[in-house]
């Protein structure tokens, strides 16, 4: 290794092994996360220009803040965090949390005390050891330059809590990486009676029927139409080609060959009859909201804006009731890309669109929105989350503390010098230290 490379490596370790650097990474991670909360994600560019001043909208799009969680920023910051985590764990956490048994300068440690005892050194040493052992401390004796030290550790095992928490985080990161590498997801709409083949999974799903229940509920502010249930009855087959009936409900997904299928939405598609001079010219494919129907031989088209489950008979406007009653469709007439007006048309009513043409909403069909996802990392993420949680609980609820004890002869008797350190500073242990020292003093001075 040349000098430069060695220096670079040392700089890298120093920077990435610094907790404040790690916390700065957390801050950047936090800010990016917050941006994604505030800026709507995954919308069309025009939506940002509509919502923000042009320079801000441009910045949002340039910086990928419209899809921040999948931007290289986000992935990069997590990669940096993982690197820092690894360096810190080996260079800092392990040496700091699992320190070797070494003598210390007792007076230099804020938690320290001295006890004088009128008894021989050996007996005092034994009593001290018994005192700590009885209280669940792990006591180890070592000699350094002719002086014997005792190290009494409380909850020593819990020193590894940080390592467990860090490991949990790494496992979660590994699980999400598995999804990025091998997983897939998407959604699909299936009309009643239609069969759809799901890309990548290869499963085929046929929608036998879709049912929903929505109840009107009287609340303090008026009637609310509360959805109670959505159910898709489907026949589906996986790789083996054998068809089985399934029921997919919200919160009750089904699994075929490891891919999960979820109830995610529903809606209505409409077939329109196109008439010329009052005679049926053609019947359209089912159109979804947002689809257009071209009027042959003209520069006009009809855009199907939305399906209205029921019209309010009094106001002649769409009712907020989402249940089917007196259904209609909202249409707009578009000529050369420009909107020429909109209309609400009841089912089976004909509307004139000019030049002898008219359209008639002929049939509506329910469709179910199914979301699918194959995620081979789920188990790993679950395990990681559990490990992380265990690590947090160990780190927070156990306080590994170490007493350093040396017993020196003093005249006829002995003096016991004690100091204590913990993994969380001194203040948190001050009371317990005081209590333990007093008990030890009483015990030693009463000859215990």
């Amino acid at each position, binding site marked *: 290794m040349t000098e430069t490379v060695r220096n670079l490596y040392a700089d890298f370790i120093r920077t990435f092994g610094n907790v404040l650097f*790690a916390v700065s990474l957390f801050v950047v991670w936090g800010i990016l996360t917050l941006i994604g909360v505030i800026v709507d994600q995954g919308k069309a560019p025009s939506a940002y220009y509509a919502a923000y001043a042009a320079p801000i909208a441009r910045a949002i799009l340039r910086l990928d803040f419209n899809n921040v969680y999948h931007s290289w920023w986000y992935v990069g910051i997590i990669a940096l965090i993982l690197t820092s985590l690894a360096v810190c764990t080996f260079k800092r956490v392990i040496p700091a949390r699992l320190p070797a048994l070494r003598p210390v300068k007792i007076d230099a440690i804020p938690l320290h005390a001295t006890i004088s005892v009128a008894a021989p050194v050996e007996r005092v040493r034994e009593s001290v050891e018994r005192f700590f052992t009885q209280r669940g401390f792990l006591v180890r004796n070592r000699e350094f330059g002719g002086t014997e030290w005792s190290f009494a550790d409380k909850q020593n095992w819990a020193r590894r809590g940080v390592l467990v928490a860090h490991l949990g985080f790494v496992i979660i990161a590994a699980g999400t990486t598995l999804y990025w590498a091998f997983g897939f997801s998407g959604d699909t709409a299936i009309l009643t009676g239609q069969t759809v083949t799901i890309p990548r999974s290869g499963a085929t799903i046929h929608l036998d029927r879709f049912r929903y229940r929505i109840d009107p509920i009287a609340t303090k502010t008026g009637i609310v139409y509360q959805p109670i249930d959505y159910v898709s009855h489907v026949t589906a087959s996986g790789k083996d080609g054998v068809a089985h009936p399934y029921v997919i409900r919200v919160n009750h997904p089904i699994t075929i060959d490891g891919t999960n299928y979820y109830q995610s939405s529903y809606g209505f598609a409409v077939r329109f009859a196109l008439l010329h001079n009052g005679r049926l010219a053609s019947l359209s494919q089912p159109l979804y909201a947002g689809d257009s129907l071209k009027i042959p031989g003209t520069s006009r088209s009809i855009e199907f804006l939305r399906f209205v489950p029921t019209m309010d008979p009094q106001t002649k406007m769409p009712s907020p009731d989402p249940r089917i009653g007196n259904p209609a469709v909202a249409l707009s007439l578009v000529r050369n890309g420009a909107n020429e007006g909109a209309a609400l048309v009841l089912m089976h009513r004909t509307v004139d669109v000019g030049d002898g043409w008219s359209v008639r909403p002929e049939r509506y069909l329910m469709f179910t929105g199914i979301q699918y996802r194959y995620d081979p990392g789920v188990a790993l993420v679950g395990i990681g989350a559990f490990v992380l949680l265990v690590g947090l609980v160990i780190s927070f609820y156990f306080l590994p503390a170490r007493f350093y004890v040396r017993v020196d002869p003093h005249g006829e008797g002995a003096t016991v010098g004690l100091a204590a350190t913990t993994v969380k500073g001194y203040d*948190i242990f001050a009371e317990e230290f005081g209590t333990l020292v007093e008990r030890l003093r009483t015990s030693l001075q009463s000859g215990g």
Partner: protein
Amino acid sequence: MFHNMPIDEVLLVIAIASYIVGALALFGFFLSRVPFLRNLGATLAILGAVAQFAQLVARYEISHIWPLLNLYGSLSLFSAMSVAIFVVFAFRYRLWFAGGFVLALAAMFLTYGVTWNEGVMPPVPSLQSYWAKVHVPIVVTSYAAFLVSFVISALYLVRYYVERRQGAAMMLSASVEPGGAGAAAGTATIAGPNDGISGWLASLPTLPQLDVLVYRSVAVGLPLLTLGIITGAMWAKEAWGAYWQWDPKETAALFSWIIYAAYMHLHTRNHWRGLRTSWVSVLGFVSIIFCYLGVNIWISGLHSYKV
């Protein structure tokens, strides 16, 4: 007055009244250290929390609908849990002096919650999940623990800045009037040990003790928030297909989690422990309120329960 009211509303009135009177009593205790006020405040805090839990049970008994799945129910649990966690801390760590702040906040959040009361409504399909019943109480309890950390860290900051000002005043008086008697007289009038504020400050826990209490309450909140995010992810996986969808509510919770994770790491550093970590805890609670109320009210997403 109460005989026409349904039992749950009676309990609600008892809870709010207990919190308000209890907050006044504990503020009195904060300033005066009269033990009677502490005992009164403590009793009312317990009474209010018990009335609130009884109210939630009563609502469930009346409607047979899990009462926590709207903002009213969850704010009720939030205020009740804040008081409950505080009461446990107060008994364990002699924390009653901070109770006025906790009870006042609880009264405020509960009253605000009542404004969201729509009456009884069955939950939408995505909320009809076992996980919803587990997830909401866990998350709300973590928020409640952070409310307690917030109050203690705010008191830390008050104590810190008052002491610093006193320190500055003492230095000033010492430099203006150098010499034994003069300095003593100066400090006695501005910030001497018998001075009102000093005496009052001395009766609060010390800064390191307050810091340890903040840490202990974050130690309740952060594992719960982690567990809350995990149970939320499990529920999301069942309802929406993916355990993590980068929905505003999830990401806002992640943001708060990141702040408290930063708190925890900074707290391992000697120079950051205390003053700066207390500020991080205050910031953390601001983010919790944003995640809890801000996102629900201003930002729509999957958690506005479309399906």
